[in-house]
């Protein structure tokens, strides 16, 4: 093609664009807010967030996104950069680096496996602040946070213990690591506090997100008599929908949004509420007063009890709410004597387990049927 034709084509294109530009810019001007609001529309802080899965999972990632949206609503002028399905590989480092190039000064790396990559970037960019979910690494510009879930499962157990008719409760667990076993144990302790005949059956799927197996696991529990099922996997969606189809009660975990999936048989659930923490962190960055910490908060802070489903009687609601209040005020269900399911006393009279101990369970409490390993 001779250069002449090319130029004329470009020129024609640019005049066309110009003609278009005038009405478009007029439209934009009309859409601009009045001068008084201009100041607040300026970006005060750009926050980056990476998620390991989709934010529409009714689970872990949805809860993270809800927290960030709450932060955005609380601090006018916050700009949010988000990336979903970011793998726990060096790829995540590139995604976060891109966010920093776009001006992010605070980054939430929300999955456990993002830790090392976020930490690398924290070393490289001392003026950018990082918060990682669930890890342990620390630096002047790198903190971490997570919900202390175990005790919060106690009131869930109370709900299940009261709702069950068969005295069999089903628990679908992804991978039986210490924290998950702790959740199951607190659930069983709560259930047996109101219903000493209740027992918890556990089915391990072997992964955090194998949906077809989660459905089969929930079916298996229901076949074996469970009439309340709950779960600790990335997204509660499959287990809750399977229970709803089979006409069995469900208790959710990760995001309280999951109750939409079970209009009839939803009992209650636990959801992470990261909003207040994320807001406070963003404010500290704006004020130049970021303090790294290893923040672990439980019920009433980073964890909230979801609204009850229509099938839950008032007396049960009152019991669950009372148990949740008790835990919020500091009650520790892992206060001795606690016996494991082989009859051995694991927490002696007068002792109690908390903090780091929550990750080191390798035994089930009395009332849980099954082997942990």
């Amino acid at each position, binding site marked *: 093609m001779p250069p002449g034709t090319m130029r004329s084509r470009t020129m024609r294109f640019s005049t066309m664009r110009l003609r278009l530009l005038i009405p478009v810019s007029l439209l934009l001007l009309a859409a601009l807010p009045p001068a008084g609001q201009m100041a607040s529309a300026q970006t005060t802080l750009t926050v980056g967030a990476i998620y390991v899965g*989709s934010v529409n999972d009714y689970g872990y990632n949805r809860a993270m996104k809800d927290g960030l949206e709450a932060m955005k609503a609380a601090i006018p002028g916050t700009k949010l950069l988000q990336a979903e399905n970011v793998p726990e590989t060096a790829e995540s480092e590139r995604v976060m680096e891109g966010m920093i190039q776009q001006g992010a000064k605070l980054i939430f790396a929300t999955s456990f496996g993002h830790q090392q990559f976020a930490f690398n970037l924290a070393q490289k960019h001392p003026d950018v602040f990082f918060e990682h979910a669930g890890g342990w690494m620390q630096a002047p510009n790198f903190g971490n946070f997570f919900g202390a879930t175990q005790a919060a499962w106690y009131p869930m157990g109370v709900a299940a213990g009261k709702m069950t008719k068969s005295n069999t409760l089903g628990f679908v667990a992804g991978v039986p690591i210490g924290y998950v076993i702790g959740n199951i144990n607190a659930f069983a302790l709560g259930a047996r506090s109101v219903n000493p005949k209740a027992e918890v059956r*556990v089915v391990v799927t072997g992964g955090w*997100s*194998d949906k077809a197996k989660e*459905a089969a*696991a929930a079916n*298996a529990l229901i*076949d*074996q008599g469970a009439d309340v099922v709950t779960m600790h996997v990335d997204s509660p969606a499959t287990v809750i929908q399977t229970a709803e189809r089979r006409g069995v009660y469900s208790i959710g975990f990760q995001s309280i949004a999951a109750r939409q999936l079970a209009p009839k048989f939803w009992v209650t659930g636990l959801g992470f509420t990261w909003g207040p923490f994320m807001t406070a962190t963003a404010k500290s960055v704006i004020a130049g007063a970021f303090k790294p910490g290893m923040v672990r908060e439980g019920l009433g802070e980073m964890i909230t009890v979801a609204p009850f489903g229509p099938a839950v009687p008032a007396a049960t609601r009152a019991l669950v709410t009372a148990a949740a209040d008790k835990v919020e005020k500091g009650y520790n269900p892992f206060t001795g004597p606690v016996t494991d399911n082989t009859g051995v006393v694991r927490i002696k009279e007068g002792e109690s387990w908390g903090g780091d101990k929550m990750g080191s369970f390798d035994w089930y409490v009395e009332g849980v049927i099954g082997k942990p390993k």
Partner: protein
Amino acid sequence: MSTSFAAAVLTNSVLSGTSLLYATLGELVGERAGIVNLGLEGIMLIGASAGFAAAAVTDDPYLGVLAAGIAGTAANLLFGYVVIVRRANQLAAGLTLMFFGLGASALIGRPFVGAIVPGLPGLGMSVLGIESLGEFDLLVWLAAPVAVLLWCLIFRTSWGLGLRATGEDPTVAFASGRSPEVLRFQALALGGFLGAIGGAHLSLALALTWDEGMTAGRGFIAIALVIFARWNPLWAVPAALVFGGAEALQLQLQARGTAVSPFLMTMIPYLLTLLILVFWGWNRRSAAPASLGRSFYGVE
């Protein structure tokens, strides 16, 4: 409402085995024409996401199944172009198809993550007369009849004769006036349809959600099942049942509270795959289509 343990295991074997059976049949028909498709996992994923997406848009799970089949056919025909027309290496092209399916399904399913779809409904009949067990959906009821139909198609029709000839020796099929290329394309179209329906059963009947990579290796198990089934659609039925059964059994054992390590139990289906390949694998030589994996370069 605890039901008999054996009945529960059997029902759930059928439920878990259904998607495996469709996928196995899909792979089998292609292999009968001489084409190994290692991309079955990708086809299943495309079926799972396209089916879920279509069901979410139309609010009709059956249209979802249909859409899954069409999407699977399209993807498999693309694979066919690469290995039949361009004569690329089938193993390499198959693995590429697997990754293509992984990406394409993520792309299709992305806007529909978290959508609430009507699942495939259970069809009236309670299973084994036990009310509390989950009801079987249309795809479950059709799975075994489809296997029988496919057997008739392969072993009792002229088209099937041509298909088998193509798998054994394409030059023979060619000499008898058939086109090995056309037969292979037809086999892949049918195989893609069936494989994708296997994926759609996971998302539309079992999980009721779409999740990236949700087939979790079932496509590869189905490829192993073709060997176990000795390239015979009728044998594919017990093969899929045994593997569906291994998963159902270990989950039911856990739910029952059996004191066996859950780590050991989650291994059962894969251990079984290995064992069967070890003790059954020798049949490969005797039963496998002779031209499996070879391109047809025409006749001099």
